[in-house]
């Protein structure tokens, strides 16, 4: 069977870990700067006074003037989520994390280890920790497991047998479906408010009206959707952190700190000479909150200089001075070596890099964005007649 563990409002819970007192007050996750002014998850106290997740900020503050806006802490959330996933992996669950606060795993491999599905799920809930109020759902299908987890009480599990799946799903709201909001609104305007009502509709009509997404949602509502659990490969635990004596906002200093961190993390013996596929840089910000950027490298590499060049520009995106900077090697390649030519022609590497750089510029700006300067009359006394800008498409 497939199990789903759900932690509603995970980002808010993670952000409140450092300020647990706020969990009992009306609080909501503040929107990120530059995004739509919609609040994120809210505490139970806020919900009791009428504040709903996804509400406009102005409306939420008008509804509850004492509402506390909690700054998002993506690095803290990611770290907390990683700790949860690793605890589950340590207990033998091969998990597929979907997003912070939601994961799946197959119970088949561990049922006998723990003596049944229910015991297995209890063990998983205990591994997550009661402080997170996790809920578990088990069913033969992924969507049914998610639906079961979403109706379960905190710390409880809900098991749905295959033959009762459709009956179980029928009274549940459409909001559970992974459909775009407009599609859900469209269905509500048509009078379809429950999964059972959607499941009753003819499949061809749904496909015609809502397209492939609608067809998938229709199959899910009927409890017929397939989909296996693809367990992740546990990531490498290689990271280095640098605490600054005082907040640093200068990009030059941050770049130097990044260079030091990269040298340190690449020198770790547990890397075993493997090249890096994915790397993350994170920072703790001066006013609280955190910042994190992940970069998948074009090709696995182990040279600090090249990784620094790729990662350095991300530091310019830091929204505030940082009190700590960390580098994490998120994904390493399997192989330890890289086949090179015995004798490389002079300038070949530089030429390849230039070609690749130009290719990237072209792909981001479209055709006609790269030019070569061609000298046509360098001796001319008229400056504009000395050289031409010629489009370079190769």
């Amino acid at each position: 069977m497939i199990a789903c563990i759900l932690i509603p409002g995970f980002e808010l819970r993670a952000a409140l870990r450092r300020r647990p007192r706020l969990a009992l007050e009306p609080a909501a996750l503040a929107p990120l700067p530059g995004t739509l002014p919609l609040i994120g998850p809210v505490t139970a106290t806020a919900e009791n006074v009428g504040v709903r997740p996804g509400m406009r900020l102005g409306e939420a503050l008008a509804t509850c003037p004492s509402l506390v806006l909690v700054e998002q802490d993506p690095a803290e959330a990611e770290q907390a989520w990683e700790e949860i996933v690793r605890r589950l992996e340590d207990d033998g669950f091969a998990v597929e994390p979907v997003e912070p606060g939601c994961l799946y795993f197959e119970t088949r491999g561990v049922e006998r280890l723990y003596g049944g599905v229910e015991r297995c799920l209890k063990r998983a809930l205990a591994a997550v920790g009661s402080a997170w109020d996790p809920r578990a759902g088990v069913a033969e299908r992924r969507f049914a497991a998610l639906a079961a987890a979403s109706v379960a009480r905190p710390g409880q599990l809900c098991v749905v047998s295959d033959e009762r799946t459709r009956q179980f799903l029928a009274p549940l709201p459409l909001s559970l479906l992974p459909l775009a909001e407009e599609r859900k609104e469209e269905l509500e305007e048509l009078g379809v408010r429950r999964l059972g009502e959607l499941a009753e509709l003819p499949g061809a009509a749904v496909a015609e009206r809502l397209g492939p997404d609608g067809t998938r949602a229709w199959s899910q509502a009927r409890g017929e959707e397939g989909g296996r659990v693809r367990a992740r490969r546990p990531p490498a635990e290689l990271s280095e952190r640098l605490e600054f004596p005082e907040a640093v906002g200068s990009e030059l200093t941050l770049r130097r700190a990044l260079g030091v961190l990269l040298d340190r993390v690449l020198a770790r013996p547990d890397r075993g000479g493997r090249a890096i596929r994915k790397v993350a840089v994170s920072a703790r910000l001066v006013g609280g909150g955190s910042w994190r950027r992940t970069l998948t490298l074009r090709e696995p590499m182990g040279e600090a200089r090249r990784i620094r060049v790729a990662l350095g520009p991300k530091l310019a995106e830091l929204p505030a001075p940082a009190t700590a900077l960390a580098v994490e090697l998120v994904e390493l390649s399997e192989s330890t070596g890289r086949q090179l030519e015995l004798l490389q022609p002079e300038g070949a590497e530089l030429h390849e890099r230039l070609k690749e750089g130009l290719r990237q510029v072209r792909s981001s700006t479209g055709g006609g964005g790269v030019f070569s300067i061609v000298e046509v009359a360098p001796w001319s006394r008229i400056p504009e007649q000395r050289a031409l800008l010629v489009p370079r498409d190769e």
Partner: protein
Amino acid sequence: MKPAERGRVETGGGEFGPAAAVGRGAPRRVNEPQPALVEPRFDGSPAQVNRQVVAIVREEWRVVDRWWTEEPVSRRYFDIVLESGQQVVVFNDEDQRLWFSQRGV
């Protein structure tokens, strides 16, 4: 072709300005003269460039070229430093009586 005509036809917004997108795919000249707003002194040297006061005229020279063609060039160049510290090169097209700024001189 006179600088003003070239400015209209080929660049308008500078090498990487809005007009650059229009002319994509065709070769363009580097360092095309750009029209400049210049307030001259009585001796013809610039007193203000683009509403900024000129601090020093570092150098002055003339370019007289292509007099044998139908598009002769006769320019009086000034290498100047503005009060803001910016260094600019401007010239007066003596045929058209118009001022231009130019880079790469």
